[in-house]
């Protein structure tokens, strides 16, 4: 029994990070109708940003978000408005292939810049645990990352629900032409959406860097987890994203180091075959 509860706890903690990995991709999928194959590399860029800045400045990695989030937001806006909006004129496939091109460029650029060495964002509490009754325990690090993930998703939800820009983003994802009749510039909204997606990737990168070691080539793994979260959660659905993250987290915890990924992939293929539109989309 204790083992099962411990697994559930670990699964939930892990699931929150997975949800964070997927939330930006889900937004772009739902709003811009684009599969951003570079999302994994965006996350790894965030991880490098936080790790290296915290080393250079000698501060807690969490504080580096003050720099990485705005920088990556601006980068996202630029990538969308300068590059992707232009190719979207030609249809969705060229846009998909452009993000694919971006992904391989970024991966090798990271390799050139930072070598193939494993990296990790160090925090003083990296080995601390909280002991609970009945032999259960929670790693402080996991709990911190859990809190960061949930806070990010909560802020995003509030933003989408209660601000003009958030409503404009939702309206654009429903009906682009009708949104433009309300005075919304679709291209600008796409730019902001990509900026936000990249800002969430910055936070997700911090989480990745704090919990695991990462390499320039790690982007692909996280992209597939993010995609899995999008598929199971349904595009653009935040509650769906949370549940999907949890499902993946549990699959990973149950499968362990050897079979966790395999189980996740099989789950994903099964999901795609049975409900290609996601569990939570209408």
């Amino acid at each position: 029994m204790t083992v099962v509860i411990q697994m559930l706890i670990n699964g939930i903690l892990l699931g929150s990070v997975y949800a964070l990995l997927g939330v930006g991709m889900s937004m772009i999928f739902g709003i811009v109708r684009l599969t951003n194959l570079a999302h994994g590399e965006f996350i790894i860029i965030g991880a490098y940003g936080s790790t290296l800045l915290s080393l250079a400045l000698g501060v807690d990695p969490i504080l580096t978000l003050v720099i990485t989030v705005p920088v990556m937001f601006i980068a996202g806006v630029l990538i969308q408005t300068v590059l992707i909006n232009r190719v979207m004129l030609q249809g969705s496939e060229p846009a998909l292939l452009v993000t694919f091109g971006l992904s391989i460029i970024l991966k090798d650029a990271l390799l050139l810049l930072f070598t193939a060495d494993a990296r990790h964002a160090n925090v003083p509490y990296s080995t601390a645990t909280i002991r609970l009754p009945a032999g259960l325990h929670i790693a402080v690090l996991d709990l911190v990352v859990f809190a960061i993930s949930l806070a990010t998703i909560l802020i995003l939800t509030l933003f989408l629900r209660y601000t003009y820009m958030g409503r404009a983003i939702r309206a654009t994802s429903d009906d682009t032409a009708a949104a433009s009749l309300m005075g919304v510039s679709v291209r600008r909204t796409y730019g902001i959406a990509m900026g936000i997606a990249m800002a969430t990737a910055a936070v997700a990168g911090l989480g990745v860097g704090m919990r695991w070691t990462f390499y320039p080539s790690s982007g692909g793994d996280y992209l597939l987890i993010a995609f899995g979260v999008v598929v199971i959660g349904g595009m653009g659905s935040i509650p769906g994203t949370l549940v999907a993250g949890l499902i993946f987290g549990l699959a990973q915890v149950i499968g362990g180091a050897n079979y966790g990924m395999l189980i996740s992939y099989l789950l994903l293929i099964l999901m795609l075959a049975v409900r290609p539109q996601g569990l939570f989309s209408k």
Partner: protein
Amino acid sequence: MSEPILKVEGLQAKYGDFLAVESATLDVPAGKIVSVIGANGARKSTLMETIAGIHKPSAGKVTFKGEDITGMPAEKLVLRGLSLVPQGSRCFVRMSVEDNLIMGSYPKHARARVKESLDFVYQLFPVLKEKRHQPTSSLSGGQRQMVAIGRALMAWPDLILFDEISLGLAPAIIKDIYARIREINAGGTTVVLVEQDTNRAIRTAEYTHVMLKGRVVLSGRSKELGEEEIKKAYFGL
């Protein structure tokens, strides 16, 4: 006759190589109700979408409040006071009634007045106030049209184009919506009614334009146009 608020001269619109609107010329006098009628396939909707900036025209000129707005995108025209209520209402189905309405006040000039605007729309359509937290996907066709109208009003436009507002609605609801449109017009907003249902539109509008196969073939004061004349133009006899 006063200076028209909207002047359309020789407007042409294409879908790829396909010539949808050949040449449309019409005036809309300020403060009036004007109807544009025509059979199915007369390209009324395409003309409205081109005026409202959803399509780019391939030739011709559109002047709104004395300014040349030819080819200007929809999101800029809303700021200048021109709104379109598109065919089939096109509500944001995954958003609540109130969020749909608030989207209408997205233009900067309308944001400060959002509370006042909401009160105005709820007074015009009390049923929307009851259902304000429901998603628009749960509304009836008539209620969705009300949301679409209210959403356009939230931007305080000077000119509203209504594209086939009565399509698929029960007569009693059409009557009610037309009464509201007259109220809106009485408040000073110029109204263009695009309809297939000619009788009600002509009765409501002071001026009428008849479209046939992508051209405006007949224009005049509704009262001065003979029934026979309109029928001929409408069916291209």
